[in-house]
């Protein structure tokens, strides 16, 4: 095993070395740093050109210049790491240090959303193969596959930001929109539940009526001006999360599971008012953690007392229900700052931004308020997150659908059914768990690819992250900066491949034997 790891590490270094050599020369030969001077009329033009040539060592051929750059990287071994300076004279490592947190902030929510939604939808389509739901989701995922992200981004800016802000002036939803939205919601729900024609239409009618009622309520109470979930919204969402958690862990026919899950949901809902004391205007991130700590303790305690037998199962139900049900409480707290935020000078009634990463326009008091600055950051994240989620969602849907379908054809699934296990157990325990295995590989790779992968999104939404750095490096012929971004993404990709292989061996014993 040790020899294997060493060999892989050596291989990684060779690959990164080769790739960086390739990229360095590609970039060096395809750009001309002196082109800014061709139209220059400065009197000391000759001097400036000579100076640039000296500073950038342009008289040294790129393949050789590469090694002087590499020396700075290798020097990291004895603590003198040096990525060179950008053409503005700022050390590259400093620029990277500023850009990485921004990019991470941009992509992390989108990645998690895409994974969770994508895997959930993909597995549901696999369970309901060849159903209407499957066909519709397949079509949607193909459509999303084919969408250029910059096009989506511009559409989002127009419809979700500009028109949403216009809508806020008079937040009443026209009846026709309510009808269409309700119908679509009904079709999605009914399409998934399936069944006979009668059941299809009754589910459709029920879901559509529910959606129409909610939307009419939101419109009539001008909810969008001062949104909040309130204790009813929190309670409803808590019950929904409890239902999902119970179904996944113990099945809805387990009485003790129901007690643990719904008990936790009720406890979290009841704790809604007392918990507000933790979330004052002076709160910090620690207070949010404290809220989670309180609810999770409650959930686990309820799971603990429900049954002395199989205690771990019920504790797990309590834990996950509490975890999921607490998010609405936190979101609700942020929402209640929305009205004040909307009328503040920072946004002047147009809260949905089309550009930027937030914080620029807030007053000092607003920045020091955790809830308002958090809301501001969240508002700036919404559009890029939707754009990124939409384009990466489809891949997860297709992958997890294919993966689960393949697993469901396996002999051990037939064995599980033959043993008389319930369909839920067969699919959740034997099917889904095994279908998740190949997902680990693409998950790890995707996380690594994300750092360099949001170039277009960052450009469209004017975020100053890694993608923007890369873009700057290309347009200003900044070779050191370019290589800085490149070596980081390349190294992360290789590392992720390696970790994915190791991880796969850990989660799937069958792979280990073959090695």
């Amino acid at each position: 095993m040790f020899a294997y790891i060493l060999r892989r590490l050596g291989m990684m270094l060779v690959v990164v070395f080769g790739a960086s050599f390739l990229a360095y020369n590609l970039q060096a030969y395809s750009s001309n740093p002196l082109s800014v001077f061709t139209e220059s009329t400065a009197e000391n033009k000759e001097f400036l050109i000579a100076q640039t040539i000296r500073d950038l060592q342009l008289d040294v051929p790129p393949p050789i210049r590469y090694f002087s750059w590499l020396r700075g990287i290798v020097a990291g071994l004895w603590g003198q790491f040096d990525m060179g300076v950008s053409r503005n004279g700022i050390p590259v490592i400093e620029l990277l240090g500023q850009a990485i947190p921004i990019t991470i902030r941009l992509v992390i929510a989108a990645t998690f959303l895409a994974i969770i939604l994508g895997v959930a939808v993909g597995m549901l389509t696999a369970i309901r193969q060849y159903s209407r739901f499957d066909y519709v989701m397949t079509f949607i995922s193909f459509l999303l596959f084919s969408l250029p992200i910059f096009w989506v981004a511009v559409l989002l800016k127009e419809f979700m930001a500009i028109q949403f802000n216009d809508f806020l002036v008079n937040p009443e939803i026209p009846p026709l929109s309510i009808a269409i939205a309700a119908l679509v919601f009904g079709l999605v729900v009914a399409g998934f539940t399936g069944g006979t024609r009668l059941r299809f239409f009754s589910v459709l009618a029920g879901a559509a009526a529910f959606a129409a009622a909610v939307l009419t309520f939101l419109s009539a109470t001008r909810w969008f001006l001062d949104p909040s979930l309130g204790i009813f919204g929190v309670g409803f969402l808590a019950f929904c999360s409890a239902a999902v958690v119970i179904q996944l862990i113990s099945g809805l026919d387990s009485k003790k599971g129901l007690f643990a899950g719904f008990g936790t949901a009720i406890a979290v809902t009841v704790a809604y008012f007392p918990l507000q004391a933790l979330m004052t205007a002076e709160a910090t991130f620690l207070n949010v953690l404290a809220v989670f700590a309180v609810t999770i303790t409650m959930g686990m305690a309820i799971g603990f007392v429900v049954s002395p037998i199989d205690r771990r199962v019920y504790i797990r139900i309590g834990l996950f229900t509490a975890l999921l049900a607490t998010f609405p409480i936190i979101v609700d707290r942020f929402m209640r700052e929305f009205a004040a935020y909307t009328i503040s000078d920072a946004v002047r009634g147009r809260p949905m931004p089309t550009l930027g990463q937030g914080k620029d326009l807030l007053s000092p008091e607003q920045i020091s308020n955790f809830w308002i600055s958090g809301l501001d950051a969240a508002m700036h994240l919404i559009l890029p997150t939707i754009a990124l989620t939409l384009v990466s969602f489809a891949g997860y849907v297709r992958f997890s659908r294919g993966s689960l379908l393949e697993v469901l054809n396996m002999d051990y699934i037939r064995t599980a059914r033959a043993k008389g296990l319930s369909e839920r157990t067969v699919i959740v325990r034997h099917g889904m768990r095994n279908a998740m295995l190949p997902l680990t590989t693409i998950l790890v790779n995707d996380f690594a690819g994300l750092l360099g992968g949001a170039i277009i999104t960052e450009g469209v939404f004017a975020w100053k992250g890694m993608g923007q750095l890369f873009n700057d490096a290309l347009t200003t012929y900044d070779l050191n900066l370019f290589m800085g971004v490149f070596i980081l993404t390349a190294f992360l990709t290789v590392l992720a491949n390696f970790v994915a292989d190791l991880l796969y061996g850990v989660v799937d014993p069958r792979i280990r034997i073959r090695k």
Partner: protein
Amino acid sequence: MASEKKETETVFDKNENEIVNHETEGLSQRQIIFRRFVRHKAAMGSLFVLVSIILLVFSASGLHLGTREEPISVEGWWKYSITDIDPEGAIASVCNGGVTGCPTLDLLPEFIDGTGVQIGEHPLGTDLIGVDYFALVMRGAQQSVMVMVIVGLLGVGIGTTIGAIAGYYGGIVDAILMRITDMFLVTPVIVIGAVIGFRFGNLGVLPLAIMLGFFAWMGLARFVRTEFLTLREREFVDAARVAGASDRRIIFKHILPNATGVIIVAGTLLLSGAILIESALSFLGFGVTAPDVSLGSLISEYQDTFSISPWLFWWPGSLIVAIALCVNFIGDGLRDAFDPKQRRNISMQERKRAKELSAKRS
């Protein structure tokens, strides 16, 4: 109750097998695959749409190749080119309270909106200075399709060659080739593309497409290699080798035909990826640059005028989506057709018919 259910299930299974067997009786592998593909409705529809788009695009704007100094041109049937400016025509078409250059295309018949079905002078409107937008979009789509096809052909060619060699010979050859593949693979496509586009974008679409093609083969090479690794262990390869076949003959005559499915499917994925990459590069300004246009550069140019003249934004975007969507669906149809485990969804009516048939026979 349970036994009754089981019985109907076995009857179903038997019938299903019968339907499938009956359909494939006496057909060659190729015919079976072709039939499966033709039966895939989404794929056939997409194929039709894609061919129509390509015919429309290429016939409308003609072919313009060669360098700027020595153009080789074949004129298309559309009356305007991307350099003709028609300010009067643009001003003549006004809509939405004074916005000029609106599309004159009208597909609604007279009894709905009062005007009849017509194409008009500028069916997709004009851009801000009066250039016919139909000509621009057709030209842009043509560029994008050309990039797509060239990248696809080069990617499939190089990828298959490298994957086949690595997979067939294995050992040190495999190790070296795969490390080289990794080197290309760790570089994000958009990074390579941007560097290439930066250098070759202004030379026109052909050099750009060729250079992109040289960096688009890695995924395919990996697929082909895996396929070759498994296929070369199979008995028919051993048999060929015992019979004295050369390496070349084994690769081309015995293994490659069996790997066609993988190659075609990965190839279509490559195609739809290529059109998105090209448009993304042009959008960022690294791809096709002015005075030439591509769908991506059109979107990039008019993204800020969305609220005034949205058609400048809708048309190129919808074309990209339409082309990529068609290619994806065709790829899906091909994957299903080549997948031996694939069982199509047998409808209730067919089951019924098969049941009646078997009842009649017995």
